[in-house]
Structures are given as structure tokens and as C-alpha cells.
């Protein structure tokens, strides 16, 4: 009998692979089914948004930053606006803060629903995706209602919001919040005690809390490993300290713990949404009154000369921002998020840098999958919730 020869195999996973959540390329070295080494290659979606932002006026950057992390558009634009507002030294009205909180939490649910659906599908539970996208549709309808655009509403503006809430907004959000808890139970029925799901996720892709912090995986990944850090609690912004909610944590640090943390986060987000909705009046202030920053209402533009001049100035020259730099952290769906914004005192940003939680999650991928099985690679990529638009920017 001839001597048996073994050799490792190099597998190129991606860039076009249905379960890499975009164009992520992984070069895996395999010994049988075990992963010996992995090297992620990114950059396929690099579009130079940060460079483009330097050519735009401050307000024009908002649609750009929304397209970075395309599953958390409202959080992106909110973080950017808050950094610019900090440089301007303005404080938005309380009603705007509550609306921003509500929209950010709805965005978190939206992002987690996409995550849950795709992650479930990748580990074999295809029906979860259809269920999750059914509820996500309602959230996209709310976006359409407030802004006419479902994925990238550009509703947040520096100095407040673009316009007041539409008629029927409270009813739509209420209907969603009433429907959602039962639907979340339904997803949990499909997965939480599903034996196949447990076998695919428990003890897979384990990371310790210290490693998660060292690799800056702060967010749901670190909370699943026992790191109790949430920007909303530790460095509260927009008045989160006045809301009653918990930060769910688990200690296992595996894929299943991340699932549990995100599902629990959705429930907490709904709690915040309910409180925020109660505080928001259907009509009221939606931006600061500074006419140098926010355009005057349209009815005044049509009837008053002064308002017309302000309107013209804002849309042709924009506004200037005092020189300096600001980074205001917010808790996005993927962890701490923020925009490091530098101004040189003109009407265009000197530098806009996004803190991309997905980039750091992608960096940690190697640590999470080496030593595991190739089938688990899919489960791990799903569980760290990378958005390649945010990785490559």
C-alpha cells in the first residue's frame, strides 16, 4: 500500500461569496476541515468617502456618511451631526434629542433584524430571514414616511432635523412597537432552543472580554464576553441618562452569546422607543432657531425677503464652523461609533474620519476563526456583524 500523503489546502473564500456580507475576501489555509490560518483582504468597496467629504459643504456630508454603514444610516448621520454641533457650540432642543433617540433606536432594531435574518439563514435557518425582513419592512416604511427615502433618509441635519415629523408618525411607530414583542418571541421560538442552531453556535468563535477590548471590539461583541460597556450608559449623550433601560451582557463570548445579547438589545431598544415616543409631541421645534445654520421654513421663504436671503445663503455657501476638532461617541448598532471631525473655520470640513466598528471586527476575524472548523467561519462572520461599506468606506 502506498504511503498516504497529506497536505494543507488553500481556499479562497470571496470576494464574491454569499455569506461574507459583501466583498470580503478570506484566504484560508485548511488542514482537512480545520482552519490553520486566515488572512482577510478588504478594500474592494473603498470609494474614498472621507476624501469626498472634504470637498463638500458640511450639510452635504450627511448623505455621504449615511452610505458608509448602510445598515445604520441614522446613527451615522446622528454621530456626524453631533460632532459638528459640538464644534459649532450649539445645543439642539429637547424634542429633537428625543426624536433622535427614537430614530437611533429604531435604526438599531432595523440593523439587528437584518443581522439576525442573514445570520440565521447562513447557519441554516432560512425562515428566520423572511420573518425578520417582514418586520424590517415596517421600519423602512417609517423611514419613507419621515423622509421619502427608505434606506438613507438624510433626516438628521446639523442643528436638528430636516423638517417636522409627518402626520401619522406616532401611529406608525406605535403600531410597530405593539407588533414587535410578539414577533421577537417568534424569532426566539425559531432559534433560541433550536438544537441545530445551538450546535452551530455554542462554543464557536469564542473571544474573552480582555481580548475583545484589546482589539477594540467594544459593542455587542464585547458585551457578549462580559464587558459591561455601553456609551449610552457610560458617556451619556442626548439625555440617555433620563431613560430607563438595561445593558444586556453575557459571559460566554461565543456566537450564541452574541445572538442573545443582540436579541435582548432589541427588547431594550423598544423600551427606549416607547419612552421616547411618549415624550415627543406631534408638533413642535425640530431644529435650532439659528438662521445661520438651519434654513428658514418654506412658507417664510416664499413671503419674506429676509428669509429668502437666508435660504439662498445657506444653500449656496452653507455655514462656517469654528476651527477645531471634535469626536462625539455614540452607541451605534455595532458598538462605539463616531466621527472625528476637523474644521479649519471654513464652510467645508478639513477632515472627516469615521470610527468604523466593522473594520475592527474584520481585523479580529483572524483571531476568531483560526483553529476552528471551516463551517464555523460562516457562523463567526455572521455573528460579528460586519458591514463592508463601513469597513472600506
Amino acid at each position, binding site marked *: 500500500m502506498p504511503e498516504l500523503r497529506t497536505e494543507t489546502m488553500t481556499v479562497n473564500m470571496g470576494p464574491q461569496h454569499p455569506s461574507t456580507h459583501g466583498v470580503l475576501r478570506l484566504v484560508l489555509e485548511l488542514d482537512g476541515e480545520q482552519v490553520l490560518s486566515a488572512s482577510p483582504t478588504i478594500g474592494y468597496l*473603498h470609494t474614498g468617502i*472621507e476624501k469626498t467629504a472634504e470637498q463638500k459643504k458640511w450639510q452635504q456630508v450627511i448623505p455621504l456618511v449615511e452610505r458608509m454603514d448602510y445598515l445604520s444610516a441614522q446613527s451615522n448621520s446622528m454621530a456626524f451631526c453631533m460632532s459638528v454641533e*459640538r464644534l459649532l457650540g450649539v445645543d439642539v432642543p429637547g424634542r429633537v434629542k428625543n426624536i433622535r433617540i427614537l430614530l437611533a433606536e429604531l435604526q438599531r432594531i432595523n440593523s439587528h433584524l437584518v443581522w439576525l435574518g442573514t445570520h440565521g439563514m447562513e447557519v441554516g435557518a432560512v425562515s428566520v430571514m423572511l420573518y425578520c425582513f417582514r418586520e424590517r419592512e415596517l421600519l423602512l416604511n417609517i423611514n419613507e414616511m419621515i423622509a421619502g427615502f427608505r434606506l438613507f433618509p438624510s433626516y438628521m441635519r446639523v442643528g436638528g432635523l430636516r423638517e417636522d415629523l409627518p402626520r401619522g408618525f406616532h401611529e406608525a411607530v406605535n403600531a410597530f412597537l405593539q407588533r414587535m414583542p410578539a414577533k421577537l418571541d417568534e424569532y426566539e421560538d425559531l432559534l433560541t432552543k433550536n438544537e441545530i442552531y445551538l450546535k452551530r453556535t455554542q462554543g464557536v468563535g469564542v473571544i474573552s472580554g480582555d481580548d475583545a*477590548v*484589546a482589539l477594540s471590539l467594544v459593542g455587542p461583541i464585547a458585551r457578549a464576553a462580559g464587558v459591561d460597556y455601553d456609551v449610552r450608559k457610560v458617556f451619556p449623550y442626548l439625555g440617555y441618562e433620563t431613560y430607563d433601560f438595561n445593558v444586556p451582557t453575557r459571559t460566554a463570548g461565543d456566537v450564541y452569546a452574541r445572538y442573545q445579547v443582540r436579541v435582548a438589545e432589541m427588547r431594550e431598544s423598544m423600551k427606549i422607543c416607547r419612552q421616547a415616543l411618549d415624550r415627543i409631541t406631534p408638533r413642535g421645534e425640530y431644529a435650532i432657531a439659528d438662521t445661520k445654520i438651519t434654513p428658514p421654513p418654506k412658507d417664510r421663504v416664499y413671503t419674506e425677503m429676509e428669509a429668502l436671503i437666508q435660504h439662498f445663503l445657506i444653500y449656496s455657501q452653507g455655514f462656517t464652523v469654528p476651527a*477645531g476638532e471634535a*469626536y462625539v461617541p455614540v452607541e451605534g448598532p455595532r458598538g462605539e461609533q463616531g466621527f472625528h471631525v476637523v474644521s479649519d473655520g471654513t464652510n467645508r470640513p478639513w*477632515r472627516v474620519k469615521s*470610527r468604523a466598528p466593522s473594520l*475592527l471586527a474584520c481585523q479580529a476575524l483572524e483571531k476568531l476563526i483560526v483553529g476552528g472548523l471551516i463551517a464555523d467561519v460562516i457562523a463567526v462572520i455572521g455573528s460579528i456583524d460586519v458591514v463592508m461599506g463601513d469597513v472600506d468606506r
Partner: protein
Amino acid sequence: MDAAALVASLQQAVPDATFESAVTVDLHPTFYVSRDHVAAVARALRDSSSLKFSFLAEVTAVDYWPRDPRFEVVYVLVSLEHKHRARMKVRVSGGDAHLATVSTIWPAANWLEREIWDLFGIAFDGHPDPRRLLMPEDWEGFPLRKDSPVQIRRPPHVAEPLQVTPEEFRHNVERDRLARE
């Protein structure tokens, strides 16, 4: 903890380094540190019991061209234990754009520093993997520098597929087979 207190405790840990506190408008007390002492100061930031900046939130660079020194490398740090934040900045001149890596102290800095090398051309001494991150490997120039042009059309870079004759192909296959055995 304000910038003065931060600088005082760092000065004690790293007596050689020069510090300079700066104004800030957000919740990050800001200070500059001399370029040659970045690694030592970073270690002190992470390990001193009163600081404990275990979480590196962000490393980025800003190009202030044509000012000299043109670059500033910015580190945003968070202490999960003491719940405070800080921003460390390093001035780097354009002609001599390199500084020590902190990826040995915070592993998260690895890709963030690669991104800075890729987009700004600031080299990190001692970096374990100093390659480009986002741009193609054969890209010329550093796109986020202020003197890098925007909205230009470059002729597309094409590579001809490798042409081999049938004899060469058979020879290559044979050579690979021999190498495997």
C-alpha cells in the same frame, strides 16, 4: 480628569518626553506628545493604575498641509475602568513622516495604522505588517494627503494575461508535480 492632571501623571511615568496640553471642545482632554516617546507614553497610558486606558477607540491622522509639521496623528483613548477618555496627538513632519507603532500595546492599532500608512503615507516603525490596507497594492501616492489631486482621470492600469506556449505549459505542470513530490 483634565489635560493638566493627565500630563502631570504621564510626565512622572515618562520623564524624557515633552507634553503640551491643548484646548478641546468635546469630552476628550487633549495633549500633544513628542514623537520619539509615543510608544513609552502609550504603555504608560495603558498600564498606570490611575489611567488604565485599555481601549483604543481610534487612531487617525490629519494633514494640515502646507503647515509644517504637516501631519498630526490622533489617538482617542477610553478607560473602561475609570470611565474617562483622552486624546493624544503627535506632530509628524512631512519630510520625515514616521513614528513608533502602538500595535504592540493595543492590538487594535494594527489595521488602523496600516490605514494611515495607506492613505497618508506615515510609516509606523516596528509595525508587524506594513502593507497597504484599502488601496490597491500598486497604487502610487497617498490619497488623503491634501496635495493629492481629486477628480482626475488616470489611464487604467491593465496587466496582460500571462502567455505560455503549450510546451511551456506542460513543462510548468511537470515542474510543479516534481516540486510536490
